């Protein structure tokens, strides 16, 4: 098992030096935070990794767009983006439907002047509707993101059993992906979903030229309805870049229920053969925790990964910590509407 306090040598030395220098002020939370070596982000950058066969490199950690919309103020979100960027995060996730556009607006504002150095993704939220609606959403996303093109445009939340059929129906959103790419409005295309590896495999079986596929990857997933064992190898085989998400269960379920320490969970996800691991950040504290793992990241050894899978096996076995697979908790409002499902209030889980 990997210790929660296993830091690389440089961060340990740096942290220890600060600890030695700072006066110990019990009760002073700021002082405690400053003197806590675990709060120190090592010098260096988040490493870059190839995005499948695209020839493009992206940061090994991506900044999740949903939680940027949950940050308390625009200012707080700007600061999160700026700091992440300074430490080498170039991959910015988003979706047309997050916080009714607020998440996209915030990223657009925060990346002003830095657009060309960033890899900007957002997702289209047709949820079964046609190409025309998709293209309208694309224009709205571009406007909110204050850019003339996206680096990656993905079909959002492919989680309902009939979604693949609807996506590939004549005049469906798959045609919009192709058109947008042809028009130069998006460089790469993909899809996302958090529910069922079988749905992902059905999507891939269409042999559509996806550049990316986004999926939940964490140390519980490894042994339960597993994207890691069923979808990841298939994506790799096809040369499609895998984008990991929900490394701690979506709302930190894996950590809250004691399956893993946060650093461990994140390191596990980032050590898989993925292009990036998208992680939600709504406060500076969370960003710092993430950067501590991601800056100068080095993958876990195979034996360490197996130890984490074993450690999580019991809690993984009924899906209790992966509620996105087992319940409607993480199914968004627009998708529910389009599929005539009860609202979040009516059917929370």
């Amino acid at each position: 098992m990997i210790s929660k306090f296993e830091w690389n040598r440089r961060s340990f030395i740096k942290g220890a030096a600060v600890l030695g220098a700072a006066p110990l002020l019990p009760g002073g939370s700021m002082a405690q935070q400053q003197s806590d070596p675990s709060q120190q982000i090592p010098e260096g950058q988040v490493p870059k990794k190839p995005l499948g066969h695209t020839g493009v490199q992206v940061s090994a950690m991506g900044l999740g767009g949903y939680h940027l919309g949950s940050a308390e103020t625009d200012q707080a979100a700007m600061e999160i983006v700026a700091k992440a960027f300074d430490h080498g995060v170039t991959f910015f996730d988003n979706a047309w439907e997050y916080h009714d556009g607020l998440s996209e607006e915030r990223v657009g504002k925060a990346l002003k002047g830095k657009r060309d150095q960033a890899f900007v993704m957002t997702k289209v939220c047709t949820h079964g509707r046609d190409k025309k609606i998709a293209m309208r959403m694309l224009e709205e996303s571009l406007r909110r993101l204050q850019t003339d093109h996206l680096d990656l445009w993905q079909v959002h939340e492919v989680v309902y059993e009939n979604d693949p059929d609807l996506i590939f129906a004549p005049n469906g959103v798959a045609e919009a992906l192709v058109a947008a790419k042809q028009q130069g409005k998006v460089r790469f295309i993909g899809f996302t979903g958090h529910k069922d590896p079988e749905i992902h495999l059905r999507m891939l079986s269409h042999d559509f030229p996806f550049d990316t596929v986004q999926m939940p990857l964490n140390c519980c997933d490894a042994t339960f309805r597993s994207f890691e064992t069923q979808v990841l190898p298939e994506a790799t085989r096809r040369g499609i870049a895998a984008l990991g998400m929900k490394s701690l269960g979506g709302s930190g379920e894996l950590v809250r229920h004691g399956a893993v320490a946060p650093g461990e969970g994140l390191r596990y996800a980032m050590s898989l053969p993925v292009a990036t691991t998208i992680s939600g950040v709504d406060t500076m504290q969370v960003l710092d925790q993430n950067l501590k793992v991601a800056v100068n990241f080095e993958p876990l050894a195979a034996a360490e990964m197996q130890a984490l899978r074993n450690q999580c096996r019991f809690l993984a076995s009924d899906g209790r910590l992966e509620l996105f697979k087992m319940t409607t908790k993480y199914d968004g409002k627009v998708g529910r509407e389009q599929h005539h499902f009860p609202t979040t209030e009516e059917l929370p889980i």
Partner: protein
Amino acid sequence: MPQSSSGTIPLRKFGRADAKVSALGFGGHHLGEAPDAKTAIEMIHQAVDGGITFYDNCWEYRRGKTEVWMGAGLKGRRDKVFLMTKTCPHGRDGSLALQMLEESLHRYQTDHLDLWQVHGMGFDNDPELFIRKDGAAEALERAKKDGKVRFVGFTGHKNPKVHLAMLNTGFPFDAVQMPLNAFDATFTRSFERDVLPELTKRGIAVLGMKPLSGHGDAIKRGVITAEESLRYAMSLPGVTTTITGIDSLNVLHQNLQIAQNFTPMTESEMNALRDRCKPDAADGRYEVYKLSLRFDNPEARLAHGFPLDTQQSEVKDMLGAQENTGHPWPEKQF
């Protein structure tokens, strides 16, 4: 609506066993929606007189209320019916399941059950937890050997794969309960397609449930009528009984009328109905019991470490039980 004071409902053979049950079964959960014990008892009396012999229930429904009401309704009529309830260890030990059996027998005021089933097999690890040493499988065996139950089975509404894994444990089940309706028929997770033929092959009694797909939303939206739904489920080749929720005398009378005049749908009628329901079946919108925790009781959620839902009737009952009424005796006993 005619009062079906007496009538007959077709009887069907209970799997390979030497027993017969009515083609329509009385679902225990909805009995708890009756306004009071008196109405519930009247519903049971009329159901027995109307020809329903199969009575469904469960240890964890409404914190015991539905078993108590059903038991009261069946007083003096016990021998006319085929009485079932379910036990709710949800992966915990067989000894717990046996304690629940004693409570159920006490609430029912009877010394034996015709059928005792393990409730709510829906999580991927349930089969493994069921068949393990000291698991619920040993309780089923014990209860049967002790003569406290005639037959044993399991139920679940979530995933055909879990049902098949339960069958593959090799345990000798007499009955299996599962959702069977015109939406299930064409959904990717279909009990009709994947589990029903396997049960028929093994000679296990097939107990259909959720003929109106749980809450009847499809009926409210006009996709299908109640009569079509019920007739479809009852017409499936191989099905032993179709358990349907009955929460009022009115609903009882409607069901009795359909069941007493039951003629099976033809294969082409059934196909036409499957085709009509197919577009709405494709994403599971009317079968949320397969895709959410809505129909998973707190006992199951707690045993498996899932969150509770305060909107659920059983959770409301649990919370209600903390009230201090200040009365040493309940004002009304259930």
